[in-house]
């Protein structure tokens, strides 16, 4: 039985469609990450599910019950805003007890519940502290504890790690997931950080301008991006404009500019059709000398070298002017390739994806929002 179902949900603000005909399901105890850039509708989506905002069209079902008419406070869901919204004049315990007390729970029961969840987020020893005395990470955990104390089984988290220091953010990722799993919660977690979504989510839902782009496991979204937008937004990808040359048993051959030919695996396009060839930067290889055993050998000049930590990124300008970036693990980089070097670039046909040439051009699809 699904915990949550959205059916054709649309929400407009003036002329802008914040949510555009969204249909999807979140399973019981699933951790779903909603990924999108600023203005993609992520927050509006959470607020619709929480009941703070009413959809203009479509329905939200919780446990198969249409919940459009159920007021926010009676839904079995709790919304944790990005700003945490803790009460500054209440200490940690009072903040966490607020939900249960508002539901007219006995004070002693409310306190018991609050202490139990504070233990869970490892803040039971700071129950007397006021929010201003806590670090950002601790405040975040108080907000989470307050959500948990409400007893709601559906937790709606709006950029829960967004306000934190990077290091802390990395450490809290796995904690957040662990907590949700241990407490048997269903979570919808909104973020613009693709790595965060990949690390925490059972599934990822990618939004763009209120429209669903793809919904699937991190593995699926990363390895089988259904749209150019997704391939660009999640991970780092090279895109080349091409024309399908011919098809064969192994897939097909496309022509880049200047008649450079490249083998691909996808044979679903017709000859002479305009397409976009996508290859991940980490699946693109650079070698100083041409290697005869590799397919799809192209050559060009290294125009940029960027050190990224665990990867080194080379940007190569091919003979036809196209650019390809390749990422090499830093410890495999023993070839000493420098800016200005002439190198061989290649990729395996099975690591490439073909997309239909976008009607508004490639650049429009690559715009982040």
């Amino acid at each position: 039985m699904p915990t949550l179902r959205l059916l054709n949900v649309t929400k407009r603000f003036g002329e802008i469609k914040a949510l555009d005909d969204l249909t999807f399901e979140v399973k019981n105890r699933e951790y779903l990450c909603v990924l999108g850039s600023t203005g993609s509708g992520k927050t509006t989506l959470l607020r619709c599910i929480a009941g703070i905002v009413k959809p203009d069209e479509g329905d939200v079902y919780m446990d198969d019950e249409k919940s459009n008419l159920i007021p926010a406070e009676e839904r079995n869901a709790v919304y944790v805003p990005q700003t945490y919204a803790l009460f500054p004049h209440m200490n940690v315990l009072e903040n966490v007890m607020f939900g249960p007390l508002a539901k007219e729970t006995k004070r002693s029961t409310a306190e018991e519940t609050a202490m139990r969840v504070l233990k869970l987020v490892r803040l039971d020893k700071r129950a007397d502290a006021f929010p201003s005395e806590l670090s950002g990470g601790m405040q975040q955990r108080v907000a989470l504890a307050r959500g948990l104390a409400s007893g709601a089984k559906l937790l709606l988290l709006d950029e829960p790690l967004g306000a934190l220091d990077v290091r802390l953010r990395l450490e809290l990722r796995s904690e957040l997931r662990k907590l949700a799993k241990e407490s048997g919660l269903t979570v919808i977690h909104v973020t613009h950080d693709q790595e965060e979504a990949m690390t925490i989510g059972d599934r990822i839902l990618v939004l763009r301008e209120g429209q669903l782009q793809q919904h699937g496991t991190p593995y699926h979204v990363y390895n089988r991006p259904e749209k150019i937008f997704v391939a660009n937004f999640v991970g780092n990808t090279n895109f080349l404009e091409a024309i399908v040359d011919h098809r064969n048993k192994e897939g097909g051959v496309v022509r880049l500019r200047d008649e450079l030919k490249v083998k691909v695996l996808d044979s679903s396009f017709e000859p002479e059709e305009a397409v976009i060839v996508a290859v991940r930067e980490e699946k693109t290889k650079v070698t100083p000398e041409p290697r005869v055993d590799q397919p799809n050998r192209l050559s060009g000049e290294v125009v940029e070298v960027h050190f990224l930590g665990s990867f080194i990124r080379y940007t190569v300008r091919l003979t036809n002017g196209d650019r390809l970036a390749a990422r090499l693990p830093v410890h495999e980089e023993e070839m000493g390739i420098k800016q200005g070097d002439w190198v061989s670039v290649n990729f395996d046909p099975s690591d490439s994806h073909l997309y239909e040439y976008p009607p508004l051009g490639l650049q429009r699809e690559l715009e982040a929002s």
Partner: protein
Amino acid sequence: MPEIRVEGVKKSYGKVIALNGVNLTIKDGEYLTIVGPSGCGKTTLIKSIAGVVQPDGGDIFIDDNKVTSLPIEDRGVGYVFQEIALFPHMNVYDNVSYGLMVKGITPLEREVPVEEMLHMMNLEGYVSLYPNELSGGARQKTAISRALTSGSTLLLLDEPLGALDLKVRTVLRYELRKLVKDLGLTAVHVTHDQEEALSVSDRIVIMKAGKIVEVGLPIQLYMRPKEIFTAKFLGEANFITGEIVEKTDSEIEVRVNGSILRSNINSEADLKKEEACVMAIRPEFINLSLEPAENNSWACEVLSGIFVGDAMRYEVLADNGLTLLVKTPITGEETSFARGDKIYLSMPEDYILVYRQPEEGLEKALSLE
């Protein structure tokens, strides 16, 4: 093109010491980034250079001129901060020409420098738009253009990309570096994003608790950090404590939970036999395999494996009781492992950093506060 010298600069806010005697020389034409955990003083340092904050002690020189008590408008610096501060009632063109206008330069004389700047920043298509009609990225580009049109050769960037979405940020950071290099500027850039720092800087300054911990080239700080805190703060690292068994000029042998580890990196020359030490190894430098390797190889069990797109992140438990984080880049040729797999890990001698056991204790030395 200026050179900046910061000499013994101190600043306190009440009891909190933001800068505790900072010395730093920023070379002419250099792109320098400052990183460190929240509260380390990086923002106070750049504000002291800008002249927005008045230090309690010490001096700041720009090209050998003491500017410590000069206000920001007399220092000839371009200062850009995270909260984008454009004039909302002016379009892009007028915002960018503002600096020249207040200097009393006529509209006709302003035309060339303003247009050159707009061209360089790819903003020509936006000249008549107002700030609220621009994307976050275009707004920040306008702010940078405005800071530079008045002729400043020192660009101070305080988290200039911090408010932008990840994807936009990645594109803009390279544009920013290119601009600085093309114009021959000196740039000081404060950021919380390590990858940003690693990929754009000539040198990086690492700060902690009001002091500079280490200054160096990105690759130096990542591969051969002199300070243990740098290994912790930049990228990720496993820390393993042990005791030195043998030491020659080229090799260190360390006993760890009954096993022996060898390192080729002789980072601290005065370490002695029998002395306690801490080793750091980055997760991406540890290899996993079905068979034991020749050196530094331990049997281990896979506790968990998470797919993060361009890599797999494993947690493994070695048979000597140590839990290690391992990151395996996915480039197409590696095997992947599942939870419960009994395999081997190996740590190449060239990547094991050895540090003296910190006097204040390991936890304190690695803490972000």
